[in-house]
């Protein structure tokens, strides 16, 4: 390679820098390497995006739940995208308690109204995945510990949520997330 280049430069006829110091060979070199770089990036795209959720995983994007059997004070665990959804029918007492908490006391300030649908303030629907590291908090099932704030308690790292699943204590940064949902009829929820 080196010798070839020398002999090419040595002969007058092969000089191709046109006097400005830029040789044709340099251009070819840069262009070829750049194009190889583009090729590497292009080849990496399928290798990386292959790991994103596949079509069948995305197809489980919505789920319907009949909530007519849930009495006030009761809750159920539904499944959406392989994640648990807590659906809880709040009692008037729980609603009053939640509204009595000043927002300044909250780490992630949200009112009950912001966490529920208008006219359906008694229906708390949240993703039952602790916002710390993803364990399922206790408290939705009958007899499970509800933690110091009477709502949900994550046994993994000790995060405590209140009755409307707002973070009150422990390492979790945010309230339990409210998924996108709507009431398709007075007693049927569609999540997703």
């Amino acid at each position, binding site marked *: 390679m080196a010798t070839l280049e020398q002999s090419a430069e040595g002969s007058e006829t092969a000089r191709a820098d046109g006097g400005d110091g830029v040789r044709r060979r340099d251009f070819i070199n840069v262009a070829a390497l750049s194009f190889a770089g583009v090729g590497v990036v292009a080849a990496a795209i399928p290798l990386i995006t292959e790991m994103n*959720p596949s079509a069948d*995983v995305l197809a489980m994007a919505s789920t319907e739940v009949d909530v007519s059997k849930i009495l006030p004070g009761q809750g159920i665990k539904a499944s959406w995208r392989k*994640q648990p959804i807590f659906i809880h029918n709040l009692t008037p007492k729980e609603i009053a308690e939640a509204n009595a908490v000043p927002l300044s006391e909250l780490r992630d300030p949200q009112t009950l109204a912001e966490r529920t649908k208008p006219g359906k303030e008694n229906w708390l629907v949240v993703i039952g995945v602790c916002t710390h590291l993803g*364990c399922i908090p206790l408290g939705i099932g009958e007899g499970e510990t509800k933690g110091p704030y009477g709502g949900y308690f994550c*046994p993994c790292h*000790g995060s405590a949520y209140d009755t409307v699943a707002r973070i009150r204590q422990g390492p979790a940064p945010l309230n339990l997330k409210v998924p996108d949902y709507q009431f398709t009829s007075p007693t049927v929820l569609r999540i997703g």
Partner: protein
Amino acid sequence: MSFSWAKSYEPKSPFMRWLDDRLPLPRLIYGATGPGYPVPRNLSYWWNYGVLAGLFLTIQIVTGIVLAMHYYSSADGAFNSVEHLMRDVNAGWLLRYAHMNGASFFFVVTYIHIFRGLFFGSYKAPRELVWMLGLVIYLLMMATAFMGYVLPWGQMSYWGAQVITGFFSAFPLVGEPIRIWLLGGYAPDQATLTRFFSLHYLLPFVIAAVVILHIWALHIPGSNNPTGVDVKDERDTLPFHPFYTAKDGFGVGVFLILYALVLYFAPNYLGHPDNYIPANNMATPPHIVPEWYFWPFYAILRSFTVGFILPAKLWGVLAMFSSILLLFFLPWLDRSPVRSGSYRPMFKRFFWLLLLDVALLGYIGGAPISPLNVALGQIAAAYYFAHFLIILPLVSRFERTLPLPNSISESVLHGELQEAAPAGTARRKPATAK
């Protein structure tokens, strides 16, 4: 590469001469682990653990390859295939227990190896890259062990995957997309299991490759030794074979006995019973803990309960990652020119305190959450960082070290050599200790 007095390889037969001219593999082995590699003559049994780590890596690769012949990486079949392996496959129980406990033993010997290096200053110049490559191996081991633990698809597997991939969600903006990308879904599922199996099979070979770099970098200056004094001449060294092959062989025998004891009498002692319950994405076990070798880091993660400026969750994750990344800077945090802790009275005390601190972190990481445990964990985690960032730089600055021996052979022979040598030839400039 090696010392000038290293014996060079002489092919003994015409065939070996023929081979040596074409593929000098026997020459490489002779020079790396044979009589052609001179090693300080005073290495103690603490120097066995590198070879022992190599032994357990080999055991893991060999048992792992045969386990993979019986394992299905399917979310419906994984748990059952492991049970089938345990109950129906010939010697399946033995191979699986060997692999499970082999991982624990790999970590035991690696931790001893790391603390050996910490005490004797093996991370100091000219061995900084040996130390850093070792840390890369350690990080790869942690990734491999974590993914391996997910494969049986029991409750601990599933929730371990959920929590550990959850670390990434702590980072703002990019965190959640990264987590979903790693899992291939919104929660651990088939996609997660299959990719973890693929990577769990791949990474041990990557580890083996980095081990080769680690040994290569080690063989440039040669091994450190209990005095920390550099090798000066031929009297300070012995050929690796037969002296250290024999000494390492003894250590291998001892560790294989310990391994067999655990394997045959307490194979599940280090595991967690919840992992014999099939994965259930609707119920978290009440007390989830990682495997014992991650407990100190888990304790650091759990030490952050209130946020300041950044959320507590992000602090926990950052602290946990930086507790290991910090070690990459160790050669420059400890500036003392004396390597061995034996000649550093102040350093020695803090070394044992650090060891106790890590043991305490380990205990806290495995214990259930309680206010006392969290408080203890916070103190221990703060001390861990203080040791490396405050204590070590100060100690290396103000410590009065003990006088170093003139040479390795002198420290071994306690002056007999000097008496026997002609006047003036054995006396050399004393190594300076600041």
